[in-house]
């Protein structure tokens, strides 16, 4: 009768040896190839360090001016620019400028990588139903797997530091980029595609002249989501050595420093708002210049 009360699981010994052998296999793999993989990520490390150095070493008024200009270029809305400047001033006043710059740096690089890899993958998914069927469960796993879990293999491979943190952030934040690129391209009005076909457009021409421009508002929404997810993951990634606003938050949790936590938390909220408003306003402007996107 015990079969009903206790689930018939494989015995402890087998399970342990299974886990052991997988762990050992992975350990061997990372011992043998870890260095290669690390050197593979060298350009990313370079980009990360350069952008961080730039943000930290440049005098703050210049950085603030650059961000304000980007905000203006993106949104063409003076209210958004003023609130962006206000948020940055508050962050600086409460002595979180340097950490904020570090966080912005890693978020920027992570979002950049997510865009560089996410858009082509999304396009492939839109072009091939088979690839979409393969990718969908992968994306589901990436989105639902607790984010701490994929810190483990990354750390085993690359140790603690910026690069493994960055990889974890990219993995966590890339799914909406891929999904929304795929969706945007699939939603392009079929009548317009047919018109392009009738004029003898090749697949590449359709992609460049029609599908990507028409999917751009949806792709922008994907970029926005990716940035938001990257920001939220930066805190978690601080556990494996990513510096920035996440680290004081981690310290605050461990030591119950309420104010430290709340201040840095608000700083993250602040830059999230900056990224979000600017990228959304930009997306909206593209949408307006397109008129009615899927006018059927």
């Amino acid at each position: 009768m015990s079969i009903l009360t206790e689930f018939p699981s494989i015995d402890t010994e087998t399970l342990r040896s299974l886990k052991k052998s997988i762990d050992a296999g992975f350990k061997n793999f990372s011992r043998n190839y870890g260095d290669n993989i690390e050197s593979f990520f060298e350009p990313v490390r370079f980009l990360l360090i350069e952008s961080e150095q730039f943000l930290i070493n440049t005098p703050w008024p210049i950085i603030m001016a650059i961000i304000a200009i980007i905000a203006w270029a993106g949104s063409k809305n003076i209210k958004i620019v003023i609130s962006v400047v206000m948020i940055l001033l508050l962050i600086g006043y409460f002595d979180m400028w340097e950490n904020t710059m570090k966080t912005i740096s890693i978020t920027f690089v992570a979002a950049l990588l997510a865009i560089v890899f996410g858009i082509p993958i999304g396009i492939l998914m839109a072009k091939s139903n088979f690839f979409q069927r393969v990718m969908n469960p992968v994306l589901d796993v990436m989105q639902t797997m607790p984010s701490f879990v994929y810190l483990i293999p990354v750390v085993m491979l690359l140790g603690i530091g910026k690069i493994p943190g960055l990889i974890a952030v990219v993995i966590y934040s890339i799914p909406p980029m891929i999904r929304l690129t795929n969706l945007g391209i699939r939603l392009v009005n079929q009548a317009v595609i047919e018109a392009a076909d009738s004029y003898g457009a090749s697949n590449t021409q359709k992609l460049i002249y029609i599908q990507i421009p028409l999917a751009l508002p949806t792709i922008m929404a994907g970029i926005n989501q990716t940035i938001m997810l990257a920001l939220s993951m930066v805190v978690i990634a601080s556990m494996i050595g990513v510096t920035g606003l996440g680290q004081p938050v981690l310290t605050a949790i461990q030591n119950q420093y309420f104010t430290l936590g709340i201040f840095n938390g608000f700083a993250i909220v602040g830059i999230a708002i900056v990224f979000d408003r600017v990228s959304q306003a930009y997306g909206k402007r593209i949408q307006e210049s397109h008129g009615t996107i899927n006018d059927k």
Partner: protein
Amino acid sequence: MISKPYIKLKNVSKVFGQNPDTVIDLVQNNIDKTELQNDYNHIIGLQNINIDIPKNKIQVFMGLSGSGKSTLIRHLNQLIRPTSGEIVVNNVNVTELNKKDLINFRRENFAMVFQKFALLPHRTVLSNTYFGLQIRGVKSPELENTAKYWIDKVGLDGFENYHPNQLSGGMQQRVGIARALANDAPILLMDEPFSALDPLIRIEMQDMLITLQKELKKTIIFITHDLDEALKLGDNIAILRDGKIIQSGTGQDIILNPYDSYISNFTAQVNRGKVIECEKVMKKLSKDAFSKVTIAKETKLEEAVRVMISNNINEVDVLNSKKKYIGTVYLNDVMASIINPIAEP
């Protein structure tokens, strides 16, 4: 005068469904559409279409929705591939072209105008117009210059930098036509281009097309569900029903000799005075000298009535293109021909 066919459809059939090849024999043997649908769960798009389309003329395909006319026009440029049959365009069997050749063939031979315009919403009028040229690899400034020329030609001068959603339906379709003409393809496919427009604009657009065609002399395939439009534009008209051509000929042929009651029901609504020509109702008399007032044999009946009434006469002599007398039309005969026959029950 029949010129050599430019486009030739030979036994073209199209079946939609899971396994079209399994039922294609039945379709070729003239199975009924509803029978195929009920017993074999396949739908006939086109059934044994045979037609020769001459060069430089307007060929109209007319039919109600579901008659297969949009399917047919998409077979010409192979947006839809036939299940069986041959489509020869300018001596090339387009059904045998591979993907790459087909793309090139489309670029060189076809331009298409769509019912719902199908403009690129993110592009301006100018860049919409040069889309076809851009696809063909034409470079700036020829790109802009050609587009500009055709934008002026369709009467959109000054709207180059507007986006489609800023224009009315009629103007959007003018862009659609400019885009098609800028391509300078010999064949113009027009899939119900004016159906989405309101009646006055539609007539304006039809007149524009007639004017343009006088100058361009393209081979135009024109789809419509409106017989008046078909008669106004078509040098030849083919009437489709359930994927089959049931009658093909000039507008006059169809009006005067409708093949069956389905067609005569259509033609009953038509203004016959605008379609039938004097030659069809004139009486041949042996005359050497003709009356002071004369009309050409292609004159439509409505115009003949106008001439007779304004001159206060009951008969008028008809001349051929060489100004020779060929017959006389009488007001009574003309009026009798203009009045629609009572529709057969």
